């Protein structure tokens, strides 16, 4: 289910798809509502409210469904036009449809009531008046409806754009500090150990590919852990014996779907604020398990004693970033908990276990 954080992205065209059941249903509902409005407004002119409502409904349903059918067929062509022209053409089509249906109704009524002397019929009697009134009402209602569709489509699009922009901004970025240090390590290794240098370049490329990938894509937990291991390999070259990672993740379901880059930034933080700031280095513990269909991943690392580790701007920002992306993926059902005790910091991700269709199996 959480395979796409952006939801159904609209195709960008302002007219909804009038062939779809939901929109047809909405058209029926709106036609009925308008019929009720007419019937109520004219209640004093007619003896029988219900018959007037029925007649009105019949006429408006024909018109509404007719217009929906016309727009359903016309939409694929209108879609490629600039919105203003598409709007004008749609308006003309709608008014024409209203006119044709009115004419048909009038003709049917004339044939139907032939020979009847009862003038109190539900069919119109005044040909020109009936047509003109319907065309005028059809024009006004169509124009309003088209305007409404246009405005709401714009509104929806701006909301979607905003959400996407937010996810993009939130997407964890590789720290420049890490990039340049890695470059420096590679520069050193190119002569002393070309094989390792080559591997480091490959690892760095993988990391950047991951951080540049689609902002709202979900990946498998296996892929995410692989990214973290790639990160570890690069840092290992730089920090040597000072850096150890204790992986305890066998219990984790490899196919669980996660937003990309939620574990790797925790490891990056653990190195940047913890291991790297300790003269003797230390061990980062990554521990994962599943409890009651909830995935828990804890990253624990030693930190220097006298520093406000969790208050550090960079750390707080990264944690907030992960928290918000978890929230976007599983609103209200995922969280990140942090704890700082003497000389140790831990961050724990907790989110629902859902298997996604693994995008790319390497």
């Amino acid at each position: 289910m959480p395979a796409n954080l952006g939801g159904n992205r609209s195709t960008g065209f302002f007219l909804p798809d009038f062939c779809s059941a939901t929109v047809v249903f909405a058209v029926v509902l709106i036609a009925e509502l308008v019929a009720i409005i007419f019937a109520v407004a004219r209640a004093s002119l007619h003896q029988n409210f219900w018959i007037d409502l029925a007649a009105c409904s019949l006429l408006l349903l024909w018109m509404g469904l007719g217009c929906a059918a016309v727009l359903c067929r016309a939409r694929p062509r209108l879609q490629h036009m600039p919105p203003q022209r598409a709007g004008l053409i749609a308006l003309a089509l709608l008014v024409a449809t209203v006119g044709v249906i009115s004419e048909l109704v009038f003709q049917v009524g004339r044939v139907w009531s032939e020979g009847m002397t009862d003038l109190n019929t539900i069919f119109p009697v005044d040909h020109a008046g009936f047509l003109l009134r319907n065309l005028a009402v059809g024009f006004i209602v169509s124009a309003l409806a088209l305007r409404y569709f246009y405005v709401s489509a714009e509104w929806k699009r701006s909301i979607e754009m905003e959400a996407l922009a937010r996810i993009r901004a939130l997407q964890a970025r590789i720290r420049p500090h890490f990039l340049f240090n890695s470059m420096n390590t590679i520069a050193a290794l190119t002569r002393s150990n070309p094989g390792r240098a080559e591997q480091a370049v490959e690892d760095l490329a993988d990391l950047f590919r991951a951080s540049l990938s689609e902002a709202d894509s979900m990946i498998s937990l296996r892929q995410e852990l692989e990214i973290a291991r790639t990160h570890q390999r690069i840092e290992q070259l730089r920090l040597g014996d000072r850096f150890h990672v204790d992986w305890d993740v066998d219990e984790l379901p490899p196919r669980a779907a996660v937003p990309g880059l939620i574990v790797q930034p925790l490891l990056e933080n653990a190195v940047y604020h913890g291991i790297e700031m300790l003269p003797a280095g230390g061990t980062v513990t990554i521990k994962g398990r599943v409890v009651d269909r909830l995935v828990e991943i804890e990253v624990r690392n030693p930190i220097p004693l006298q520093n406000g580790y969790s208050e550090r701007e960079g750390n707080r920002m990264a944690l907030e970033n992960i928290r918000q992306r978890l929230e976007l993926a599983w609103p209200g059902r995922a969280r990140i908990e942090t704890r700082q005790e003497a000389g140790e910091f831990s961050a724990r991700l907790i989110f629902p276990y859902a298997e996604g269709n693994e995008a790319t199996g390497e």
Partner: protein
Amino acid sequence: MNLLIVDDEAPARDRLRRLLEEIGDCQTIAEAVNGEEALAYCSDQQPDVVLLDVRMPGLSGIEVARHIDTLPDPPAVIFTTAYDQYAVEAFETEAVGYLLKPVRKEKLAHALRHAARISPSRLVKVAQSARIEHRREQICARLGDQLRLIPLTDIFYFLADQKYVTVRHKGGESLIDESLKSLAEEFSGDFVRIHRNALVAEKQISAVERTDDGRYVVRVRECSDVLEVSRRHAAELLRRIRGEN
């Protein structure tokens, strides 16, 4: 020329060493893996130039530079950093020599030709605008030719006389070559000025007493020294220890 490379990362040290060897004109190239080692080496060996990584565990590069600066004949310092926006801005404005990692050979050669001692005042400014370790966690005192690091938490008070500042700490007394004014600014969070010539660790104040002639004195917790409070600083001191600011 005698050089010292200070970096906690082995590949970074290896690369600088190789570049220096290619440039030539260095007699000795020594390496230190952290600030303490660097300081010990500097007070022993007197290198001409120190290539100093900014971000290191323990003492930061800028702290190390400030300590190095208190040596009788301090070496020139060139900072190296992979990425440190604020520090680099500070180096630029204070015209302090620095190199970005991965270091280019030409830039390294150029920096070595222009390496110069960095004045203490510029280092203070760099430390402030670099936003890394505004304040040191140790004070560096000289014992003969040796440098000695005194953790800030061990210090009871600083006392200035005409020429020097005396540091009274757990391990006894040491002289340092810094002004009381700059110390007061740097450690304003934990130390309080009680007199024109005295700066006391707030945690070490066990009592503020009033003498018979109406003056105030401070009792120091761990060494039971009694220090005079000047009229000018009394109000501020009382406010501080009552926790009013």
